[in-house]
């Protein structure tokens, strides 16, 4: 291959016609860069969320009134514990705290720090947290977005919450959660569970919902049925429901971009096809000349195929490489805002590098197949005509 006259001629011609190829590579590069960037961001966020799903409890039990979630009495926990096969029954206390004047909201989550799982997790997040010191007073751990918001609104050391009972509750800002956790903790305020109940105006016998695990997967449907029969106003959510919700969310967003990409690629292919099928004198003369020199139709098609594949590969590597740099090294400025939103607190997340080879090969196929056919079909049409006619 190295000394083959065909490949020598191919590379020579490729570099001689570089100006022509540069334009096609530039347009392809932009299309591939945008598509790859979107798919990289979406697969990275999806990967991180799928990892966190392992930490989610298997079941969540909520109480519904008028279609809205309301507080659950803690006595439900005792009833759940009586069911065989259920373990790790835990109460969750959470809710949004809304700043009406600024139209912004935080997610306040109450955590039982005496629980071993929570205690261990806190150590993983922040080694330097002194739990005794934290539990001494009314303290909170806040996400990056909350910390930034409070500081910019002159609350650098803490915040005074207004409870539904009309009382004020001053809570000291203890520590800021690390930036790496911003994907789920940006707008989060973590407080001891009793403090969260006080801020939301709940009594000690009320919680937001109850979670539990069922270690035997075969028992899930059975347990769900048993619990659903306890009360009429009860709703059971499984981990699978949440998984499906995340998948739908990203399929939807990725799908929109895929449609836009398809429209762009079809336009691009049409332009290419038109360009090659038009009376494109130099191209026609070139093919006619090769045919007159004794090249077979097969040889001409082979030359054009390799030439097009070189354009495709160069554009693909450059486009995907630039997208990787933009997303995983620079953090995808601007484009990530579409995924993270801008209606509440501004979020800046660290995207985990994820290369999904299924996605990469799909991008290549979606791009390469129409491109190659848009070039080869008109070339074949010219190659089958008489060389004299083609050179006219």
């Amino acid at each position, binding site marked *: *291959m190295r000394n083959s006259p065909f*490949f*020598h001629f191919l*590379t020579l011609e490729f*570099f001689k016609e570089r100006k022509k190829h540069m334009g096609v590579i530039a347009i392809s590069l932009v299309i591939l860069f945008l598509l790859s960037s979107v798919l990289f961001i979406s697969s990275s966020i999806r990967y*991180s*969320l799928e*990892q*966190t799903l392992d930490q*989610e409890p298997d079941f969540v039990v909520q109480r519904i009134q008028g279609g809205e979630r309301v507080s659950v009495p803690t006595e439900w926990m005792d009833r759940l514990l009586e069911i065989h096969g259920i373990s790790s029954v*835990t109460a*969750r206390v959470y809710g*949004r705290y*809304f700043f009406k004047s600024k*139209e912004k*909201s935080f*997610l306040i989550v109450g955590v039982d720090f005496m629980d071993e*799982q*929570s205690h261990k*997790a*806190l150590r*993983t*997040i922040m080694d330097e947290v002194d739990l005794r010191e934290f539990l001494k007073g009314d303290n909170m751990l806040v996400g990056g*977005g909350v910390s930034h918001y409070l500081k910019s609104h002159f609350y650098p050391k803490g915040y005074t919450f207004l409870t539904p009972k009309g009382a004020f509750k001053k809570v000291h800002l203890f520590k800021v959660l690390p930036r*790496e*956790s911003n*994907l*789920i*903790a*940006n*707008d*989060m305020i*973590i407080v001891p569970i009793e403090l969260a109940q006080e801020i939301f105006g709940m009594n000690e016998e009320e919680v937001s919902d109850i*979670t539990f695990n069922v270690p035997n997967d075969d028992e899930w449907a059975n347990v769900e049925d048993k619990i659903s029969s306890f009360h009429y106003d009860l709703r059971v*959510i499984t981990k699978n*429901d*949440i998984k*499906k*919700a995340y998948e*739908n*969310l990203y399929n*939807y*967003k990725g799908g*929109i971009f895929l449609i836009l990409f398809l429209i762009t690629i079809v336009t691009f292919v049409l332009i290419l096809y038109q360009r090659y099928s038009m009376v494109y004198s130099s191209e026609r003369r070139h093919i006619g000349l090769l045919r007159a020199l004794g090249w077979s139709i097969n040889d001409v098609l082979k030359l054009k195929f390799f030439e097009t594949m070189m354009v495709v590969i160069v554009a693909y590597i*450059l486009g995907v490489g630039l997208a*990787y740099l933009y997303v*995983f*090294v620079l953090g995808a400025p601007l484009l990530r805002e*579409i995924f*993270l*939103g*801008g*209606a*509440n607190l*501004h*979020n800046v997340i*660290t995207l*985990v*590098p994820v*290369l999904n080879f299924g996605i990469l090969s799909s991008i290549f196929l979606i791009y390469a197949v129409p491109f190659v056919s848009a070039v080869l079909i008109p070339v074949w049409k010219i190659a089958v005509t008489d060389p004299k006619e083609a050179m006219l």
Partner: protein
Amino acid sequence: MIKPFYVAGSLLLLIIFSIGVHYISGDRMGITDRVNAVASMTRMSSPSFSVAYYEPRVGGTKIGGVEKAVNIAYPEMMPLDRMDFVYEK
């Protein structure tokens, strides 16, 4: 094959190699461990998207497909069971 072709080919291979090195040496576990730890502590794994107050935020309570979120600002609007496509900054 001509010399410029080898040069261009080497540059492309260098790009692939750099991506490979960055991908392998990246601190993936450190980031996912911290996110997982927050999820484990709070028992919540919903993404912290910057969405309006009336839109779903907490996974398992209102996120797409599980429950229709009602827009309290515009009750006559169709319920939103998904995040906005393009968010208003």
